[in-house]
């Protein structure tokens, strides 16, 4: 059933080419700015480095925004088919995983071209991604329910994404962050994800245990909280849409 549902989204969303274009352009621009305009010699493989930030960040923002509007966008379904409501935001996130796969393919190719080799630590990747998906599903559940009652929620989410672009270590390395902000950064699952990815892919080391634990804790916590709020609000969806 979940699978059938995904067809709905897949056909609506952009093709493979589009999902490659955005990260490629971003990577190109950021690489140009940070190697030509502000040269920083300490970061090797800058293109790959930036892409490690862009790919999870893109997945995060796109699924957060589409997840938030999913219930309102599928009003027809909500009003007419008694399908479990939780499926709607969750499939909207899962359908974005197709793009995630494509972009990960891009990330791997860029890394291999720039001379990074495959190592055993790559086995950590599925876990790190799974945490990210659980986290975004939780956000989607929470915000899609709230968006039914307060329709400007989506604009808040979009603004938050713009702000987050600067607060997630996308174009600067984690090491440049002042010490006192580090615990805060680790609590942000997107930042934790980017940090873990870089350790795995670029340094070839296993992700830091404490970062991983925080990532898992926050992701599962957000998911459960989102589910709770969603369950509480869903009886009112019918009359509010």
């Amino acid at each position, binding site marked *: 059933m979940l699978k*059938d549902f995904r067809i709905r989204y897949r056909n609506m969303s952009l093709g493979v080419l589009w999902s490659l274009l955005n990260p490629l352009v971003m990577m190109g621009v950021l690489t140009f700015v940070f190697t030509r305009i502000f040269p920083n010699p300490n970061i090797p493989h800058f293109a790959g480095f930036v892409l490690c930030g862009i790919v999870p960040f893109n997945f995060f923002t796109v699924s957060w925004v589409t997840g938030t509007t999913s219930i309102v966008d599928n009003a*027809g379904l909500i009003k*007419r*088919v008694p399908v479990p409501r939780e499926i709607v935001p969750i499939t909207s996130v899962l359908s974005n995983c197709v793009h995630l796969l494509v972009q990960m393919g891009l990330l791997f190719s860029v890394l291999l071209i720039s001379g990074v080799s495959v190592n055993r630590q790559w086995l950590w990747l599925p876990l790190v991604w799974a945490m990210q998906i659980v986290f975004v599903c939780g956000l989607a559940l929470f915000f899609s329910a709230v968006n039914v009652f307060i329709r400007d929620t989506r604009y808040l989410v979009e603004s938050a994404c713009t702000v987050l672009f600067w607060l997630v270590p996308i174009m600067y390395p984690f090491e440049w962050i002042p010490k006192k902000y580090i615990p805060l950064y680790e609590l942000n699952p997107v930042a934790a994800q980017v940090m873990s990815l870089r350790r795995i892919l670029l340094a070839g080391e296993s992700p830091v245990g404490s970062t991983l634990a925080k990532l898992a804790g926050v992701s599962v916590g957000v998911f459960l909280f989102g589910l709770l709020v969603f369950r509480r609000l869903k009886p009112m*969806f019918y*009359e509010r849409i």
Partner: protein
Amino acid sequence: MFQSVGKSFARHAGQMLIRERVMHLLRHKRSERFHALREISFAIGHGESVAVVGHNGAGKSTLLALATGLCEPDSGRVMVHGRAAALLELGSGFHPDLTGAENVRINAALMGLSRREVRRKFDEVVAFAEIGDFIDEPVRTYSTGMMMRLAFSVAVTVDPDILLIDEVLGVGDLAFYAKCQERILHFRDSGKTILCVSHSTATAMSICDRALWLDHGRLMADGPIARVMDSYTAAMTAHAEYSTR
């Protein structure tokens, strides 16, 4: 089965921006409720076919939505046993950008069919709908009648225990209308339960043997269709005469 069911909706449910919310809170007004259904109680037995009649806005669609489980009652209890397939408005849950075939598969799955059942019944649905090559076109290119044909085909081939119909039969052409009616009668005769909303007295009379009459959310009458229809038409005619005078 409905046990003293009440359902109300918030007035001004359309205003949902933060600004409006804040203004609302500041003014400290309790939001008014619109009572779509008040204290409705009835039980429909297995194999009964029941029509729901009433003026526009009487609460007929709300009644069906409650029976389908789309929303929950504010008071009372709704109990439904068995698989209910609802034909609520046109193209219930069809996605305009997907083709007819894709929509059939998704809708059948949404109604609780397994993938194998869907594959088995797919041809039957398409044959019944008689929309030819359009099955591979996006649903947004369909005419109202075609959309209804497809929606109806899905609903009846899913083989539900309970069929809920919300005045959709009106848009089909005569041939399809006859076919639908035949199918519904067959459905009824095989002991399934039917709950249908219709403004066409003739359709309702030919399908159902019992009727519920709703007026402003209240149950005015419940009984054999001929009797209920008589008092309903009498009331409607009286009202019409009053308003034209």
